[in-house]
């Protein structure tokens, strides 16, 4: 029987602009790119030359410190640019695609008959290692580690998030193979968190049913409830959509990075799923789908809580399969907003009448911060949306003070920035909590290694 976890704390923000389970046109991108900034914990070293012809699966970039971690071209074509910023920092490696994609041949493999090292090598060669992230630090996993367990959260709960049941439809075999491959990488178990009532069914792994509001699908929350990380332990996590890509590698023998990306948000005209390939431009996904009369929108690669702000010529986030378009809102000047009753404004706080309108009302929320930055004044705000056995306020304070002992004791090794996203949303003091956590994790990683 499956284990069941009930998440009580949390918050579902009912945003306008939900996508239905339909496929939309689009996704043909003029260029594809690897963007090092989307990966944490790596130092990029570009190995491809501008003008070089590559296939889908050819190496473009490696991690300087761990050269076995490779980043490959998602399509075949010509490397057209290596864009660099200040201090020659690599911003992106761009590939112009051919009409017909040619794949590097990695050979079909039967996972069941492979040893751990063979699985590891296959994933690394095909450039899929960066899909595997590790906790502590929430960075690309270190291949030398032996993870205690591997966790996959096979659903999404963030606002307007895609429906994994729809994504996996027709690719169940690849998903299963991907999980089988992951199971080879650990002596422990592979835990798969599944939304209660979901049609996803897998075998050979530990299935955990999860109920409750966001952040129920955050893998960090599930780890904390299933088997928390203690000091010295390492666990790996993989996004469910990326497990499918890994499975495809073994079943078909090619690095096929195609994926479904859901287009959502109040400022879109068409909502649904676009079939594309990782590293495509944002424009190829959203062109013709944003309300024509509204120029002032914010496009987010990912969801509204933990996504990245992007422009149309930027590239899809490496781990993202969602685009959200919301109003920017900076032309709005809310007169005496602190004093007026505030009908139609979403707030968890009962000082706004949002509680009157019930849970089914959909809100359009723009990107304004809606207040000034303050010191932490209110207490118990974060706890209400933070369903882990961790004291968020005290952990954050330890991170700000960079008190390593305190951070370790209070659970820094268990968290990722996304776990603090809801705290940041409800925060009266408008503090950039995810940024604090990310910087803290990076600094701690440097300190420890």
């Amino acid at each position, binding site marked *: 029987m499956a284990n069941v976890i009930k998440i009580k704390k949390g918050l579902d923000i009912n945003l306008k602009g939900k996508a239905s389970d339909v496929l939309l046109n689009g996704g043909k991108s003029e260029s594809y790119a690897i963007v090092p900034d989307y990966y944490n914990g790596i130092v990029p070293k570009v190995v491809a030359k501008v003008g070089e012809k590559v296939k889908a699966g050819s190496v473009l970039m490696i991690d300087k410190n761990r050269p076995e971690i490779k980043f490959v071209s998602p399509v075949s074509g010509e490397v057209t640019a290596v864009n660099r910023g200040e201090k020659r920092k690599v911003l992106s490696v761009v590939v112009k695609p051919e009409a017909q994609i040619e794949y590097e041949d990695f050979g079909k493999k039967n996972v069941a008959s492979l040893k751990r090292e063979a699985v590891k090598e296959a994933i690394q060669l095909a450039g899929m290692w960066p899909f595997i992230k590790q906790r502590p630090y929430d960075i690309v996993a270190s291949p030398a580690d032996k993870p205690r367990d591997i966790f996959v959260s096979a659903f999404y709960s963030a606002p307007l998030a895609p429906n994994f049941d729809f994504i996996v439809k027709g690719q169940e075999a690849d998903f299963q193979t991907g999980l089988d491959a992951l199971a080879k990488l650990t002596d422990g178990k592979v835990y798969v968190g599944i939304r209660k009532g979901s049609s996803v069914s897998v075998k050979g792994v530990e299935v955990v049913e999860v109920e409750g509001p966001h952040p129920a699908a955050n893998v960090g929350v599930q780890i904390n409830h299933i088997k928390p990380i203690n000091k010295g332990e390492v666990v790996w996590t993989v996004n469910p959509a990326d497990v499918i890509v890994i499975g495809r590698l073994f079943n078909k023998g090619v690095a096929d990075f195609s994926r479904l990306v859901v287009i959502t948000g109040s400022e879109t005209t068409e909502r649904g799923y676009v079939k594309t390939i990782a590293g495509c431009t944002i424009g190829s996904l959203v062109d013709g789908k944003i309300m024509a009369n509204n120029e002032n929108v914010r496009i987010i690669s990912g969801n509204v809580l933990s996504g990245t702000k992007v422009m149309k010529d930027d590239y899809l986030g490496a781990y993202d399969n969602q685009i959200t378009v919301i109003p920017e809102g900076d032309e709005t*000047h809310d007169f005496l907003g602190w004093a007026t009753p505030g009908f139609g404004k979403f707030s968890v706080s009962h000082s706004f009448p949002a509680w009157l309108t019930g849970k089914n009302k959909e809100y359009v929320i723009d*990107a304004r911060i*809606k207040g000034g930055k303050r010191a932490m004044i209110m207490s118990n705000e974060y706890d209400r949306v933070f369903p882990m056995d961790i004291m968020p306020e005290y952990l954050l304070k330890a991170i700000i003070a960079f008190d390593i002992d305190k951070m370790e004791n209070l659970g820094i090794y268990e968290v990722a920035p996304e776990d603090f*996203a809801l705290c940041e949303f409800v*925060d009266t003091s408008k503090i950039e909590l995810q940024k604090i956590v990310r910087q803290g994790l990076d600094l701690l990683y440097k300190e420890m290694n």
Partner: protein
Amino acid sequence: MKALRNYLDKIKPNFEEGGKLAMFRSVFEGFETFLFVPNTTSKSGVHIHDYIDSKRTMTVVILALLPALLFGMYNVGYQHNLAVGADPGFCMTFIFGFLAVLPKIIVSYVVGLGIEFAVAQVKKEEIQEGFLVSGILIPMIVPVDTPLWMIAVATAFAVVFAKEVFGGTGYNVFNVALVTRAFLFFAYPAAMSGDQVFVRTADTFGLGAGQVVDGFSGATPLGQIAIAGKELIGSFQAVDVLGNPISTCDMFLGLIPGSIGETSVLAILIGAVILLFTRIASWKTMTSVFVGGAVMSLIFNMIGTTVAMSVSPLDHLFLGGFAFGAVFMATDPVTSARTETGKYIYGFLVGAMAIIIRALNPGYPEGMMLAILLMNVFAPLIDYYVVEANINRRLKRVIK
């Protein structure tokens, strides 16, 4: 609104770095954000934010304080009328109180906000709204006859030494309004206690002049209890300014002498409902203060060697500043315990300590102020142990 917005946009460049009025930048920003919610959008992290901000929070607290403040104003007039034996009707009674209280509010705001504005400007920070609440609390917890200059001095002391030196709103250890009152209490004891200060017998701006009636005494019930000693056990009866007995019901409704905002438990409870419903104050802190007070008074009732010890728990909770402190002061999120378990402990100790001071120290008829200030000091310690408990529980996981 459009015109106002355009005007602000037009004059804004003057206040920016290098503009001719740059020295008033914080003040301008303060007024701009007062008029319009800032339109800055998020740069990193979450892309959407809850509408709540600290201005809204403070506004709700002020709203919650209004019933007690308005009732306090009326009561100032009411007590004065009793003292001079006049009955000018509801409106004039309220106006008398209003005129007596208003200058205190103005002085407290002008002094406190003036310092806050100046400090914000020097530190090149945004003006913070924390003092909006402290500034209205201060006039509510002083006797009506406190001279304005004393309020000014005490407010300045509290804002500078209890708040700004610690870093401003959110960093203070002590409740700013209570530090103001403690400063007054220890620096000018004659003006803060006794039976001369809680009822205004003179006129206010020429209004309500009259001769004090025979048999008048301005002592508060707690003052009477403190001086009753042990002879009157069993026969003690709190009386109003004319010597008529006060029932528990009178204490609840609040037409008795006392500091301006503290007398009516009913009006305070309306505020409590607002604070608890909006979740701005913690019900854990609030109820534990009352529980702590009740338990402690029951214990003293059992000993019962003085009048102060034999006051019933209900009377203790209704009298003086107990309810006001429990609802508005102990729940200050910055200076109280911040952990959930800590709030129970903190609240309970505030309530218990207040009654201990009342019962055992005849020099301090009211113990609430000192109890809360004392527990402000211990709040971080309580939190420390609650956090340690969490750490230990997490460490035990490894051993299992």
